[in-house]
């Protein structure tokens, strides 16, 4: 019987610990142990040392997203090209052709973005 | 000759296409002329076909064309001219031709005159094609097409809200029956692998109808009842009759053609066409007979109290269709069809005459008419012929067919149904003469309408006269005069040379039913005709009329308290059931539909959060149920 329930017991234990540890450290033990000296600078939002200005809920310029998209595309390209380059000799002509098609398609994409003025900020 | 039968429906189709090409601005004379001539040619062809089929009763009258094969499903199209079909062709083309002619006068100056003729031609095509259909599938297709045409024509004056509503109602109510009929046809197809009448009938004869979960007898009864449901809807039988009175919102020629002579008779035709199927099941025939009898009686009771001339005739149609159903139900095949034929003539006549009256006085209320005999002699006497035929007075057409049905009911051992029919016959005679006396005799009730009244042109008079002749003599087609020719003609469809009940002549019964009819007329005369004599003075001057007058008063009292009172109560109850319960169920269903739809509409609130919540909830529910049904998790 115990054998049968064993895996489920472990799961229950895991869940209980998962709830107990953060609750204990953040709300129970932490406040007891840490020194409590609040100041205005400590209470403000962490911005890597810069003074935070304005509200976080603002609209970003849509161009950021376009740049991010372009970045992701070429990032993935590198990710795809690298292992192929490592195993180039083994993969042979077939993979070379495939990769050429892939790069040509990406170039068309880049040309498209260029032509549609995605790369210009103004 | 028979191989040209396809031309009969084809010519109205040609007319339809031709009118479509002519468009909406075509001259009235051209439109009507083309329609009348082509239909008249169809009629002549039908006559030849009728004769050819009769001369060669065992010839090949079936023409099959291969349509398509899908896997092992085989579909054929084609046409078949049995004796029954040949008779129907003649009746439909004759009435159509006359109605086309009449409409020329009636619809004169209507904005959409050509469109009206387009629809009518399409209807005639569908109806004729329905009649000579090779198999049930083909029949069903044309069955829906006549329904569609009826919808279009009832709603022809769609700018009247009642007409638009009535059109919708007629379409939806008949479709309830059609649903059953279609299921029946599919069941037959599953049981026999064919839609063909002959294949189905031979399977019925050999008792080889099986579907996994149903025995042979079960299949026969179930399919017969389902097909009958279609007939009930189309022929406006109880309890799907509610659409027919409302359908009177359509133009009167439409009522004459579609809702009296042809389309509503399609239900009777369907039962007759599948008669072997019905005969194999006692349950089905009993249902048919009782539904017919109840409709016949109920409709005639309702007709007693209606004020609208077209509604009286509409209820009368319902009642007469009930007679036909009753005849088929008790096995009196030939007499049901015989009555279908005579009824087509005299009822088309009554409608057209009523149309002529409406055209003249521009009202449908009986109590706004009166005294029209002097202004409209042709209409009066032709209406009288139709009324006498409907009332079943010797020697008019209705007498022979109705008497055959009543005798057949009694001789096949259904005395209760016989009395139903007899009471209905009495009421029939009464209400039709009530209409006659109120409309044509006495003093005009509304002077300006009377002044305005006049007889229509020859195009309206000629069809009345022709139909009046038929209403007078059509009964002799199946009488001792020609040794019951129609009966023998129709029985040739059956291998055994006979079908169902054959009536023995019984002069006593005939006299009795005529007497009942005369009694009804007499009552109507005493109640509604007497004012024409000129009131008190005249009745005092002459002693015999005085006594009659006195007795009229006496009868009137009895009638008011016993018959009219009782009749009124019954009529009111029937009307109540009809209006609130049966109509109510129909409206309730549509109400539920729209409420359900509206409720669902509010779940569609435009919030994508709601959408995904409902979807996620759906995923969870489905998976939870599925996993617990399958098991195997814990």
């Amino acid at each position, binding site marked *: 019987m115990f054998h049968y329930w064993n895996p489920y017991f472990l799961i229950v234990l895991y869940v209980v610990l998962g709830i107990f540890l953060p609750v204990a450290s953040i709300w129970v033990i932490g406040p007891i142990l840490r020194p409590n000296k609040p100041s205005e600078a400590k209470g403000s939002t962490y911005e890597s040392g810069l003074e935070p200005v304005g509200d976080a809920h603002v609209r970003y310029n849509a161009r950021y997203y376009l740049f991010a998209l372009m970045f992701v595309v070429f990032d993935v390209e590198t990710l795809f090209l690298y292992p192929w380059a490592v195993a180039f000799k083994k993969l*042979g002509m*077939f993979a070379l*052709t495939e990769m050429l098609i892939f790069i040509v*398609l990406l170039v*068309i994409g880049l040309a*498209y973005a260029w032509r*549609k003025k995605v790369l210009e900020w103004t | 000759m028979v191989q040209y039968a396809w031309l009969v429906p084809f010519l109205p189709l040609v007319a339809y296409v031709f009118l479509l090409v002519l468009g*909406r601005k075509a001259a009235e004379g051209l439109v009507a002329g083309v329609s009348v001539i082509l239909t008249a040619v169809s009629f002549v062809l039908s006559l030849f076909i009728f004769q050819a089929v009769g001369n060669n009763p065992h010839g090949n009258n079936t023409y099959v064309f291969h349509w*398509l094969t*899908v*896997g092992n*499903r085989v579909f054929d199209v084609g046409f078949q001219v049995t004796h029954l079909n040949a008779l129907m062709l003649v009746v439909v083309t004759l009435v159509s031709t006359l109605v086309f002619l009449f409409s020329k006068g009636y619809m004169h100056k209507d904005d959409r005159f050509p469109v009206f003729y387009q629809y009518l031609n399409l209807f005639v095509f569908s109806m004729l094609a329905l009649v000579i259909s090779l198999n049930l599938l083909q029949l*069903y*297709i044309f069955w*829906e*097409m006549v329904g*569609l045409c009826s919808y*279009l024509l009832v*709603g022809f004056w*769609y700018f009247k809200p009642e007409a*638009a509503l009535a059109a*919708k109602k007629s*379409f*939806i109510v008949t*479709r*309830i029956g059609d*649903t059953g009929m*279609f*299921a029946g046809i*599919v*069941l037959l*197809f*599953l049981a026999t692998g064919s839609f063909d009448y002959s294949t189905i009938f031979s399977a019925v004869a050999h008792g080889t109808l099986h579907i*996994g*979960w149903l025995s042979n007898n079960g299949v026969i009864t179930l399919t017969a009842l389902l097909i009958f449901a279609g007939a009930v809807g189309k022929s406006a039988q109880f309890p799907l009759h509610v659409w027919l009175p409302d359908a009177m919102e359509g133009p009167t020629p439409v009522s004459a053609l579609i809702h009296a002579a042809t389309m509503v008779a399609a239900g009777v035709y369907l039962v007759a066409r599948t008669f072997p199927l019905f005969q194999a099941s006692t349950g089905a025939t009993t249902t048919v007979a009782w539904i017919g009898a109840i409709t016949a009686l109920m409709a005639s009771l309702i007709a007693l109290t209606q004020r609208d001339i077209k509604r009286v005739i509409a209820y009368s149609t319902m009642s007469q269709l009930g007679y036909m159903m009753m005849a088929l139900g008790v096995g009196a095949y030939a007499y049901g069809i015989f009555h279908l034929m005579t009824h087509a003539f005299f009822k088309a006549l009554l409608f057209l005459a009523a149309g002529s009256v409406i055209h003249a006085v521009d009202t449908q209320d009986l109590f706004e008419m009166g005294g029209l005999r002097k202004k409209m002699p042709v209409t009066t006497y032709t209406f009288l012929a139709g009324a006498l035929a409907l009332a079943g007075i010797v020697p008019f057409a209705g007498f022979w067919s109705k008497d055959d049905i009543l005798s057949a009911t009694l001789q096949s051992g259904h005395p209760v149904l016989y009395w139903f029919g007899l009471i209905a016959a009495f009421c029939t005679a009464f209400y039709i003469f009530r209409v006659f006396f109120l409309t044509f005799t006495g003093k005009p009730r509304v002077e300006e309408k009377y002044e305005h009244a006049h007889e229509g042109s020859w195009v309206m008079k000629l069809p009345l006269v022709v139909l009046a002749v038929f209403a007078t003599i059509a009964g002799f087609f199946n009488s001792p005069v020609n040794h019951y020719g129609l009966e023998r003609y129709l029985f040739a469809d059956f291998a055994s040379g006979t079908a169902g009940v054959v009536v023995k002549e019984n002069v006593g019964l005939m006299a009795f039913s005529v007497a009942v009819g005369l009694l009804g007329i007499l009552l109507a005369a005493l109640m509604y005709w007497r004012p024409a004599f000129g009131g008190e003075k005249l009745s005092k001057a002459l002693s015999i009329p005085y006594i009659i007058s006195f007795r009229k008063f006496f009868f009137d009292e009895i009638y008011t308290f016993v018959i009219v009172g009782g009749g009124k109560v019954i009529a009111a109850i029937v009307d109540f059931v009809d209006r609130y319960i049966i109509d109510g169920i129909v409206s309730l269903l549509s109400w539920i*539909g*729209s409420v*359900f*739809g*509206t409720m*669902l509409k509010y*779940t*569609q609130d*435009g919030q*994508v959060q709601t*959408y*995904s919540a409902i*979807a*996620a*909830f*759906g*995923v969870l529910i*489905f*998976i939870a149920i*599925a*996993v617990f049904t*399958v*098991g*195997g*998790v814990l």
Partner: protein
Amino acid sequence: MTTPLDMLHQPYWMTMGPMIVVAATGFVVMILEFIFRKGDRRWLTVLSMLGVVAALVVAIIHFNAKPTFALNTIGVDPFASVFSVLILISALLVLLFTLDFSAKSDVPAEHTYLILFAVVGALTMASSIDLVTLYVGLELLSVASYVLVAVRTHSIRSVEGGIKYMLMGALGSAVLLYGMSFIYGISGTTNLMNLSGAGLQMFSTYPAITVIGFLMMLIGMGFKLSLVPFHMWTPDAYAGAPTPITSFLATLSKAASFGMLLRMLVFIFNAPGAHLFYWAGIIAAITMIVGNFIALPQRNMKRLLAFSSVAQAGYILVPFAMFGIAQSADWAGLFDSISFYLFAYTFMTVGAFAIVYLLERDKGSLDSDALIGLYQRSPWLAVALTIFVLSLAGMPLTAGFLGKFYIFVDTMHFSTIWLGVILFATSVVSFYYYIGWLRKVYQKEPVAEVTALSASPIMHTLVAVCVIGTLALGIVPALLLHPLAGLPWIYG
């Protein structure tokens, strides 16, 4: 060492021909589009149509080819052929539709090649036998569709519809992928050929997981097919999208999704079918009932057509429920029913949307009152709309009737009468709202001066093609059923 020359000896042309042609056309059109930026650019759409026609020719040449798959993944078999032809035909209709549309409005020209890329995705869905490539095809189609819905960037409705569609579509993809991962988890393979033998063993070992996998795949596709209760995005996306794109969503996207669903379910779950496929029946029943009833109070024409397409998806799902009951020898009939209905549905739906589009452009409103007086304004278009609507409702002599009829006969044949009854009863309900349209079409316009409804020759051609398709399939169904009849749907 494989050389480029060797590649030509591989059967790639046969297995992936239509896809290569359409994708290449897509890229060419894309390049041309950003080179030539001035003037009337409708020739780009014409060029796209030529590409699709070429792909159609390739597909038809290999229509009866022996089942062959490149890399055990993507290829040609009867199933792929039928659905590829269907997809390419609807792509042609949609492109013809956009040809008129791009001339008149401010839509960016991107939609032309986005449709082509979506078609590549759709073709992949039709002809792939690996869960991964099927999914990639679906995503290619979906992402293109999201953008297409939102292509009218200046219209808030269009963007809103696109976002809603994308969110719900992403949810659907997630559910689908989750279901696939369960199947992969218990079988260790994503290849349908390998899976088809393993179904029974999977079910007997892990019944619950198999059921979850089946249901999640069905439901995941159910989002795309707008089955109830996953249909909620449909009216918003349909009404927001430009009408040609709506017709694309309703026909091409739906046909490809049905193809993919059919391929997955039948290949993976055929053996334990009896325990699983009735779920398709249940969802079909809910979809038919809700879709038809919710359409009743609709006044907006595109929303009504959206709900009607929900209901139509329910009808098409009905034969899916039979796979659990029917012997594999009888499956050909079910495949025939489904593909016949999809062909019929394509013609009548594109036709109906074409006329709604003309009215929308003319009146600037989608309220069904725009239909009033259509018969006076253009008898030919009124009659055409009558044919489409009656076909959608299932009136004899139209393709829609025969499609429903075959499905109904299937339910009778495999003793699933309750589904047949629901199919029939709900189509009676559907008559109610379709007839409501017809009443308005034949009503007179209240204004005395009747202006004819103008339509370009392109739209007339499109409507005529759809009318011919609807009537031809309704009167001579052998045109389609004959080529379908002998196909070896199930092989190996």
